[in-house]
């Protein structure tokens, strides 16, 4: 089966093609069958391939289809590289992707553009699979841009509202800024290594460069530029909260479980390069910690249920970056996997709430939903527990590993650990703020009956995965260098374990029991200013608007008529004026003509004589 690995991205692509060509003419059940079925089949193939690979000892396999092109020694192939890392990613993409597709078949059923929705979703899955299977960086870039396009199309899916269009464009353009850095990184790597095939390039890099050389550092930092764009990390994270304008399953699939982790995948995939540059690696760790804190503070004060989750996604990817930055490669990827489970669960749960409450997004207009929407409640409790990294959940296993690895890091390890720990405290506070507000207390909006089985079953499955996911062994041991042994003794592991629990208790006393009164703090002038600052995402949108958007549109507006053209039109005008001047001499009066002729003749003779 592994020889036919191309089927995995191809099937969703065929699904897209069918839905695109039929252009909404198919009845809904057919659309669902194509849209969900294609991803389901892919998932099945991935399972078989995974089984085969594990039996065969998980050694990497290259499947080449054909040479994309061959120009001047640059020969990117349409080839796939399947190893433990790719397999892990494929399992997440097709597995979680399939569940989200099933969920969507009901969630989007009433939408007029049902077929267009599944077309975009299938195209996304296909592009994402190409991204993780690509054997060379150019093909990876194809998947990379492809998922960006689908993200744009799906964020702006409800195109009639201009706000959605603006959010979609922002998502595309901001990530494209990152993509451009990444493209420059590819140019640099090609210039020095002569190939973009990942494995040969990485071996060549390790053979050519010493640790700490300038070129690998620049190349790695350029790739980080791409990664922070796609994965919504500082300083390019501003697009993700707005991207929540898309339908909720889109947020679950693209903006939580898969696409936004592409940056993490990219760094993990090229980790040999990062190992050559301690600087770049440290930058990744710093970006991770800074982002996880910035986003966690913002998540504390949001009122839109999806925006809370969006900020928490940014924050959790920050943990993955932290893991990569301290060399805990497997822990980072493991957190990617568990995060895909519990964040997809939370988004789909949020979708179920929104679905039953007629598109209500504000958590303070929700309340007491635990009896009315039991499946959603269960989803949120389990999902939030995993998000907060409470013991016995998958999130605990992965986040604990990251924090302990951060502490062991030789570069400012304890500081990184402390940052991550503060983030963990905030995480458990904001996630249980949401749970207590939405599901406890008085009923503020009466919900419809809970949604049907196609939405409930994926939720239940994801609930199970969010708990037992921590027991999985992801097959990446052969991919990454051996991790440092964690000591696991003394106070550090205990503190790491305890902090999230403290957070939940604090949240309980603040938002449910109300024994801790936060109102005076929030109402104080400092509290209010800080709240606004966090709510506006640390004013970064405002800042970028002033630095980039306003000048760009200003330059465009004042030069709409193209200043260069005034030179040519000016020439034309002057010429025309001169013609006019000349034609003034044509008066029709004979005596003037005679006078001028005489004067001219005299002058001519004088000049001729003078010359001689």
């Amino acid at each position, binding site marked *: 089966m592994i020889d036919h690995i191309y089927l995995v991205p191809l099937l969703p692509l065929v699904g897209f093609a069918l839905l*695109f060509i039929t*252009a*909404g003419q198919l009845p809904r059940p057919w659309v669902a069958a194509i849209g969900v079925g294609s991803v389901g089949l892919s998932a099945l193939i991935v399972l078989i391939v995974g089984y085969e690979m594990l039996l065969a000892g998980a050694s990497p396999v290259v499947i080449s289809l*054909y*040479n*994309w*092109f*061959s*120009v*001047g*020694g*640059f020969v990117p192939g*349409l080839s796939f590289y399947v190893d433990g890392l790719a397999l892990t990613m494929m399992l997440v993409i097709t597995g979680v992707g399939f569940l989200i597709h099933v969920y969507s078949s009901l969630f989007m059923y009433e939408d007029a553009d049902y077929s267009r929705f599944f077309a975009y979703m299938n195209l996304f899955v296909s592009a994402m699979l190409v991204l993780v299977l690509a054997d060379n960086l*150019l093909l990876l*870039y*194809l998947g990379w*841009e*492809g998922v960006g*396009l689908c993200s*744009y*199309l799906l964020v*702006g899916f409800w*195109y*009639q*509202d*201009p706000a959605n*269009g*603006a959010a*979609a*464009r922002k998502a*595309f*353009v901001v990530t*494209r*800024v990152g*993509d*451009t850095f990444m*493209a*420059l990184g*590819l*140019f*640099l790597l*090609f*210039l020095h290594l002569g190939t973009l095939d990942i494995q040969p390039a990485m071996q060549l890099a390790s053979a050519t460069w010493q640790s700490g050389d300038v070129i690998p550092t620049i190349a790695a930092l350029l790739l980080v530029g791409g990664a922070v764009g796609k994965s919504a990390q500082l300083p390019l994270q501003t697009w993700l909260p707005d991207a929540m304008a898309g339908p909720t399953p889109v947020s679950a699939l693209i903006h939580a479980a898969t696409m936004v982790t592409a940056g993490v995948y990219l760094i993990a995939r090229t980790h040999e390069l990062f190992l050559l540059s301690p600087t770049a690696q440290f930058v990744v760790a710093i970006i991770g910690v800074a982002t996880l804190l910035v986003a966690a503070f913002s998540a504390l004060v949001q009122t839109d249920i999806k925006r809370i989750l969006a900020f928490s996604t940014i924050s959790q990817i920050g943990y993955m970056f932290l893991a990569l930055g301290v060399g805990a490669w497997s822990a980072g990827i493991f957190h990617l996997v568990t995060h895909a489970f519990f964040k997809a669960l939370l988004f789909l749960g949020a979708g179920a709430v929104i679905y039953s409450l007629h598109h209500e997004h504000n958590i303070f207009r929700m309340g007491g939903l635990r009896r009315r929407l039991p499946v959603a409640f269960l989803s949120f409790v389990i999902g939030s527990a995993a998000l907060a990294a409470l013991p016995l959940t998958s999130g605990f296993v992965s986040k604990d590993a990251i924090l302990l690895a951060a502490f062991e890091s030789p570069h400012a390890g304890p500081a990184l650990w402390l940052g991550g720990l503060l983030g963990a405290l905030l995480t458990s506070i904001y996630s249980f703020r949401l749970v207590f507000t939405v599901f406890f207390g008085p009923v503020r909006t009466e919900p419809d009956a809970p949604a049907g089985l196609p939405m409930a079953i994926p939720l239940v499955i994801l609930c199970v995965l969010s708990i037992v996911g921590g027991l999985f062994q992801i097959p990446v041991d052969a991919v990454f260098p051996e991790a440092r042994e964690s000591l696991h003794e003394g106070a550090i592991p205990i503190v790491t374990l305890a902090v999230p629990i403290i957070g939940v208790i604090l949240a309980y006393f603040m938002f449910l029991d109300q024994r801790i009164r936060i109102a005076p703090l929030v109402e104080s002038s400092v509290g209010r200013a800080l709240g606004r600052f966090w709510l506006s995402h640390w004013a970064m949108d405002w800042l970028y608007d002033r630095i980039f958007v306003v000048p*760009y549109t200003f*330059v*465009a*507006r004042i*030069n*709409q008529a*193209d200043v*260069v*053209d005034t*030179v*040519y039109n000016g020439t034309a005008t002057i010429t025309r004026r001169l013609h006019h001047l000349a034609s003034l001499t044509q008066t029709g009066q004979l005596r003037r003509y005679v006078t001028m002729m005489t004067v001219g003749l005299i002058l001519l003779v004088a000049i001729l004589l003078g010359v001689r």
Partner: protein
Amino acid sequence: MLLWATILVLLAGGAIAWLAEAWNKDLPRWVSVGSIVIAGLLMVPLFVSTPQTVLLADTESEWLAVSSSTWIPRFGITLLVGIDGLSLLMVALTLLLGVVAVASSWSEIDYRPGFFQFNLMWTLAGVVGVFVALDLFLFFLFWEVMLIPMYFLIAIWGHEERGYAAMKFFLFTQVSGLLMLVSIVALVLVHHSNSGVLTFNYFDLLGIPISEGVAFYLMLGFFIAFVVKLPGFPFHTWLPDAHTQAPTAASVLLAGILLKTGAYGLIRFTVPLFPGAAIEIAQFAMVLGVVGIIYGAILAFAQTDFKRLVAYSSVSHMGFVLLGVYAWNELTLQGSVMQMVAHGLSTAALFMLAGALQHRLHTRDMSKMGGLWQDMPRMGAIAMFFFVASLGMPGLGNFVGEFLVLLGAFKVNIVITVIASIGLISAAIYALIAMQKVFQGAPTAGRALNDLDTREVLVMVLMMLGLVGLGMYPQPVFDLVDPVLASLYEFSGAAEGTQGAWTGDGQ
């Protein structure tokens, strides 16, 4: 002889179309399509023929067909035409877009349809001639043949400002063309004084010794003519007016192929004839290319007229071609050629869409559009495809071109390439804002619009498949032009006075 037959079929087809107007209004269109198809069929044997070798100075080059006969022996002017992979690709693109142009004029042109087709066909014949002429006098003749009918197309069938636009187009092209003519004559005279032979033959004029200062000015004549046509910054301002005012078919031809004659001229004539002088302005030309990329993209974003937006996007895209030609290595040259072909398809399609919108809404003003996806989902999806192609989405032809240009240019000049890469971002900004203004947003109630009909969809699908093909399997195109570029590259690199700079390592 095959090449002459092709050109004659187009010229004759034009003449017959004009005459046919008297019998039936529909007949001219069919005559046009028929003669383009015949011309295309005549080209088919070339794709399978075995190349013959001609010496370019001391470098061997392969030609698929060369034919020569005397014309004005007194001045050494011959009817020398030849076709190699590069020319063949360009001619094939010309004929393909010729059909597209006729198709897009199908329901748009009611006034004098026969004379319209005559001008269209003669423009095509001129373009084909430009791509195959190897006698410099003949080349200049075809350069004019391509210009004058296009002037009529804009001046007679154009939109509200057609007089201004047509005159501007004519003046820019004519003035720069005259500079080229001066250069051609001077080059021939230099050769004459060296060898006593009077000839306009491309092969004979290649590699002749010219003193450095003279060569620079002769080169400049060619350079300006071609950069105006391309168009490169700051000679681009004729283009937005001409494109915007031209009828759809003429816009398709202008953007699709006429611009490419400029790039073709740079690759075929300017650099090989004056390799030493061309290197002197390579840096400058690359800067012009980059300025064009960014400047065009920002102005495209600023426009409210749909056709002007697409026109400025062409300035941006052709900047990549200029950059690629003057970075002059295998990657950038192949990238430039690919960009020419892909841009030909994607921009032609966008102009067709502009025509379709104007036909239905009687405006090009995007502020009066919005929400059209609701009314015309098929058109919306197709427009999305071509705008996405235009912003350089991998998997489609434009990406391959732009990526190769940047990848190769990075070897030559890192700073210029980094700035050029900003074009990738700017392209996304104008392409997506266009989609927003035209197709997204709230639809206007009570608007009854017909979605694209079968004929329009067929043409569009043809071009979509073309772009996907170029994006996912571009190798046939690369293989076709590879021998040509390799020999030009080798030739220019080996030429005296370049110190190997053209081979890429010199800078």
